C-alpha cells in the first residue's frame, strides 16, 4: 500500500499526540494541577518553562501534555461510539429497508438539522460537566454522516454478486452483514471516523471553553483556552500553546483522513491489482 504525503504527515502528527498523551506523566515537568507556585506566576516561555507559566505559576507545557490525554480520550472514544451507532443504524436500515429505513432516515435528518454542538450543549446542560457526560454528549451527536455512508454503501453492496451468493449459500442476515457488507465498507467508515475524531477534539475544546466540558483546574486544551481568555494580551503564551496543540492535532487527523481516503479508495485499489 502506498501512502501519500498527507497521510504520512497526518499520521505522524496524530501519532505524536497519542505518544504525548500516553506518556504524559513522564513527559511533564511538574504536576499539571498541584504544581502551582505563585513565585513563578506568568513567566514567559524560557528554557526552564518551555511554554511559560500561568497566573498560578503552573507549567503550561505540563498542562498541555496532560491535556492531550483528555482531548484524545474524548476524540477517540466519542468517535468510536459515533461509528458504532452510525454503522449499526445505517447498515441495518440499508439492508432491511422498509419502515426501519424510514425511521433511521428520519432520525438522521433530524440529527443533521440540529447543529450538533448545540445538541451536545443541551445534553451537557442536563448531565452536568465532566468527562463522562462529555463522552456521552459527543458520542450521541455525530453519527449521522457515518450512518449515511454506511447506508449508502449497504445499498450499493447489497446487489453485488457475492452478497446474493451468500444468501443462496444459506447465510443468515447477521452473517451477511458482518462477513460480506461490513468488511467492504470499512474504508469510507475509517475515513469519516478519522475526520470525525478531529471534529470531536474541536467540539471538546469548544464545550470546555464554554465551561461545560472539563472544568478547571483539570487541564484540557479547551478549558486552558477558556482560562487564558482574559490574559490574551498580557500573557499570550497561555492561549497560543493549547491553541497550537488543538490546531496540530486536528490538522493531523484531517490530513490522515484525507490521506486514508486516497489509499482506501476502491478506484485506486483496483488500479494496483
Amino acid at each position, binding site marked *: 500500500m502506498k501512502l501519500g504525503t498527507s497521510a504520512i504527515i497526518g499520521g505522524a502528527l496524530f501519532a505524536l499526540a497519542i505518544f504525548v498523551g500516553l506518556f504524559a506523566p513522564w513527559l511533564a515537568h511538574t504536576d499539571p494541577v498541584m504544581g502551582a507556585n505563585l513565585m513563578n506566576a506568568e513567566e514567559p516561555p524560557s528554557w526552564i518553562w518551555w511554554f511559560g507559566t500561568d497566573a498560578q505559576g503552573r507549567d503550561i507545557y505540563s498542562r498541555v501534555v496532560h491535556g492531550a490525554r483528555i482531548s484524545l480520550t474524548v476524540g477517540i472514544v466519542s468517535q468510536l461510539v459515533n461509528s458504532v451507532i452510525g454503522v449499526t443504524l445505517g447498515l441495518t436500515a440499508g439492508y432491511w429497508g422498509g419502515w426501519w429505513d424510514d425511521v433511521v432516515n428520519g432520525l438522521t435528518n433530524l440529527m443533521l438539522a440540529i447543529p450538533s454542538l448545540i445538541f451536545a450543549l443541551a445534553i451537557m446542560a442536563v448531565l452536568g460537566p465532566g468527562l463522562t457526560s462529555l463522552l456521552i454528549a459527543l458520542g450521541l451527536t455525530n453519527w449521522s454522516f457515518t450512518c449515511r455512508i454506511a447506508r449508502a454503501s449497504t445499498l450499493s453492496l447489497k446487489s*453485488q454478486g457475492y452478497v446474493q451468493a451468500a444468501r443462496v449459500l444459506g447465510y443468515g442476515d447477521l452473517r451477511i452483514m458482518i462477513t460480506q457488507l461490513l468488511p467492504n465498507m470499512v474504508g469510507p467508515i475509517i475515513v469519516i471516523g478519522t475526520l470525525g475524531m478531529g471534529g470531536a477534539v474541536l467540539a471538546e475544546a469548544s464545550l470546555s471553553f464554554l465551561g461545560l466540558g472539563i472544568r478547571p483546574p483539570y487541564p484540557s486544551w479547551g478549558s486552558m483556552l477558556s482560562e487564558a481568555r482574559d490574559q490574551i494580551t498580557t500573557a499570550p503564551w497561555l492561549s497560543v500553546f493549547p491553541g497550537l496543540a488543538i490546531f496540530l492535532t486536528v490538522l493531523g487527523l484531517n490530513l490522515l483522513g484525507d490521506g486514508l481516503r486516497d489509499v482506501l479508495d476502491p478506484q485506486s485499489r483496483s488500479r494496483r491489482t
Partner: protein
Amino acid sequence: MTAPPLIEVEDLRIDLDDGVKHVAAVEGVSFRIDRGETFGLVGESGCGKSITALALIGLLRRPLAVAAGAIRFEGREIQGLSAAEQRELRGNRIAMIFQEPMTALNPVSPVGRQIAEMFVLHKGKSWREANQLAVEALANVRVPAPERRVKDYPHQLSGGMRQRVMIAIALACDPDLLIADEPTTALDVTVQAEIIELMRNLCAERGTAILMISHDLGLVANVCRRVGVMYAGRIVEERGSDDIFRACAHPYTQGLVDSLPRLGSRAALGRSRLREIAGVVPAIADFPSGCRFNPRCAQATEICRTTAPETTWLGAGGLVRCHHHA
C-alpha cells in the same frame, strides 16, 4: 411406496407484480429431478429459467413471487418451510454456482475463509477444522498448491480458478442438488470444458443431482441426461438429451438446434449462413396469447394465435407443447 423425487416442481407459476402491472413471468412449469440425476433448462435470456431456479431455493424477492403450484424438496413443500428451515436447505442441501465468478466471491476475504465459512455455518465445525477442510475442498477442485491458495484473495486468481473456488464452496457441504446457472458463460472456451468436466465428475462421485441452466443447448445436452426447453415462461419441450438433437418436436427447439454450428456442416465450412430464429423473445408484459412462440413460428396457424397448446406426452417421458408437433 417409492421415495419421492429429490425435487419436484408442479405447475409452478411466478408472478411479477410491481403494483402497476401484474403478469405471470413463469407459468405451468413442471419437472422433477431424481437423486443424482442431471437436468438442464435451456432458453434465451428472459425466458424465466433463472427465476425458476431462485424459486427452488425460496429466494424470489419482490416484485417476483410464487403465485401457484408447488415446489417439493424430498416431498416437503419449500414454500411451507420457515425462514430458518429454508436457510438450512440453502448451501447445505441445495447449492448454487453462478455465471460471474468475478463478482460471486467476496473481494475482501481470502478464498479459504469463504470455503471454511460453509463448514462453520452448516456443519458446526470449529474454524480450525473448517480451515483444514477448506484446503481439502480446494484440492478436490484440482487447484494446485491448495494450502497456499487458501490465503489468496479472489482478485489474485484467474476466472477459471475462481469458478473452481465457487464449485468448492457450493460442494463443501455435499449438497443433494447443485444448481448451476450459466456456470461457464464468462469463461474461455478451453477453461469451460475443464470446469464442466470437473463439475460433472465431482457430482457423479458424490451422487449430487445437477440442475443446469444455460442458453447453450449443446452444452446442456452434453452435461444433462434430460433437457427442458423454456420459452417465454413455459416449458415447451422436455426430452432425453439424446432425443433432442435427433428428433425434436417443438419448432422452437428445432430453431435452437439449427442455430448450433455443427462440425462438417455447410454453415461451419462457411458456405452458408447459420440459421437463426427470427424475432426476439417477447417482454414479460406482452406475452402473446395462444402459443407464446406463435409470432416467431413458421408453422403457426390460426389455432396457435388463440389457444395455448396442451401438453402432449411423447415416448420415454418426453413432452411437448405444440399444436403442430412433429
